[in-house]
């Protein structure tokens, strides 16, 4: 018996719904597009494996096939996939359509590899990925599911991170004071801002689509990763030098993100203010040394404030799952602060017992009251 069916039987027994309501729910659910990860997951995985296999085959040097034939075949496959995708779109078969556009996008990447091989072109891998991101920018907005947009934004941000780091290394030749670790610090700060700008831009232009949600998921991962890296790198970057040219892209993206958020009529005032506060705390973490915060505890507190602002931002749009994730991260940061503040004790058994007990107590408290806490915060923010 499926999960839905079990729930319906239980609700009927409890008198929450009657039999006719249960039938209407069954009918409604059966008419939804088929999918869920049990079907689309293996299908997408199969398509990705095929795509990677094609890329590998191309990379294996088909020296026995003339270059012209290889190129013509690649373009014919691309054209066929494009036509097939268009036809499944017209027929409204969303699962097949998604599989085909993923295949199409990966085939574009395979063709870039083929052209590189046929003409022995040089250049770095990140340049190839950036070119791929450029030509498939429109394709990601046709996706019904978030897999392709997620893959796209990961490729874009990581490629730009690689290019940015190369640029900063070149900048270092002009200013020796800019260290490699400073470069990492700046890239870690800037890339999540790029992802955030793309997310807010996507939300502004196309609304809550699978693409926007995929961008949002990657932004969240980037933000958490970058704030954690700022904490880890803190000791190395404490006396970092300020070089405006290196920080400028981050400032531009920050202003762009704020501009888009404030011009999006879909956000309430409280949401706009919360996003701005979260961004300011985020910025402060990466400029801690310049504002006189020179202690690991200070960074951890700034991180907590940033994570809490982000958590409340999600609560204001009733994204309870993300609100809870960020509160968990805040809890872990509190444990870190405790260990920092009582460093001597932490090395003893008593300190470990106390910190473990604190974590257990917070977890139980949260489990018992999370829904009520979330609901109160959502109402307060309305």
């Amino acid at each position, binding site marked *: 018996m499926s999960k839905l069916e079990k729930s319906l039987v239980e609700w009927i027994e409890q008198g929450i719904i009657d039999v006719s309501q249960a039938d209407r729910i069954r009918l409604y659910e059966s008419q939804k597009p088929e999918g869920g990860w049990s079907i689309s997951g293996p299908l997408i995985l199969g398509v990705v494996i095929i795509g990677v296999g094609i*890329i*590998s085959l*191309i*990379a*294996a*040097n088909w*020296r026995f096939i003339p270059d012209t034939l290889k*190129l013509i075949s690649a*373009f014919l496959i*691309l*054209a066929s996939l*494009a036509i097939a*995708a*268009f036809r499944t*779109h*017209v027929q409204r078969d969303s699962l097949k359509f998604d599989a085909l556009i993923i295949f*199409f996008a990966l085939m*574009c990447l395979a*063709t*870039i*590899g083929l*052209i*590189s*091989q*046929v*003409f*022995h*072109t*040089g*250049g770095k*891998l990140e340049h*190839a990925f950036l070119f791929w991101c*450029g*030509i*498939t920018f*429109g*394709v990601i*907005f*046709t*996706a*019904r599911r978030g897999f392709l947009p997620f893959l796209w934004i990961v490729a874009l941000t990581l490629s730009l991170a690689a290019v940015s780091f190369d640029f900063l290394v*070149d900048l270092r*030749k002009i200013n020796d004071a800019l260290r490699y670790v400073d470069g990492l610090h700046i890239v870690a700060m800037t890339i999540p801002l790029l992802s955030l700008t793309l997310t807010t831009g996507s939300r502004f232009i*196309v609304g809550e*689509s*699978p*693409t926007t949600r995929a961008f949002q998921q990657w932004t969240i991962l980037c933000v958490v990763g970058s704030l954690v890296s700022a904490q880890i790198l803190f000791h190395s970057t404490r006396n970092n030098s300020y070089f405006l040219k290196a920080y400028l892209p981050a400032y531009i993206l920050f202003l762009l993100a704020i501009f888009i958020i404030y011009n999006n009529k879909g956000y309430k005032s409280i949401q706009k203010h919360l996003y701005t506060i979260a961004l300011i705390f985020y910025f402060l973490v990466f400029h801690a040394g310049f504002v006189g915060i020179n202690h690991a505890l200070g960074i951890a507190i700034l991180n907590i404030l940033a994570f809490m602002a982000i958590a409340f931002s999600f609560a204001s749009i009733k994204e309870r799952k993300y609100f809870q994730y960020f509160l968990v991260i805040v809890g872990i940061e509190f444990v870190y602060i405790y260990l920092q503040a009582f460093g001597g004790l932490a090395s003893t058994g008593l300190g470990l017992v106390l910190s473990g007990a604190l974590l257990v107590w917070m977890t139980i408290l949260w489990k018992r009251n999370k829904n009520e806490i979330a609901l109160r915060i959502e109402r307060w923010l309305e």
Partner: protein
Amino acid sequence: MIESKKALIVVLILPIIALFILTFKKQSVKAFGHKIELPITGYDPRDLLAGHYLVYRIKDSEQLCSGFQDSKEVFLCLNTMSVSDKRPTSCKIFVRGECFHNSFRAPSIERYYVPQEQAAKLEQLIQRGNASIVVSVSEQGEAVVEELLVNGVRWQR
């Protein structure tokens, strides 16, 4: 999310056109460019996505960039083997590149794809200085590698 049929056609056609233009540009340089043979020295890194390729440098390209900053775009005149930061007007064949630690680098012609089983042997021959590349160069200094020669003969032989 794009729902319109016209928009869908446009986003599906654009990548194909972009890739076709890229192919056409490279093929044009290969077909109509000036052919020149350049001796090379090098090594062989590996890359999963790009297959197996040889990476090398144009022989005697070290010190060509003395006095130029790293990553600066420069032009190598292949007739005189001299570098300038401006497009040479009197040079018949020149290649665009950049400077790196006083060496001239032309990323567009410093890579050649070979079958995996041949890579080690070819690498040794290049290291010994027995190899050269035939390059096709356009009027604008864009270059495409046509062939890898070992002892003056195509590597496949």
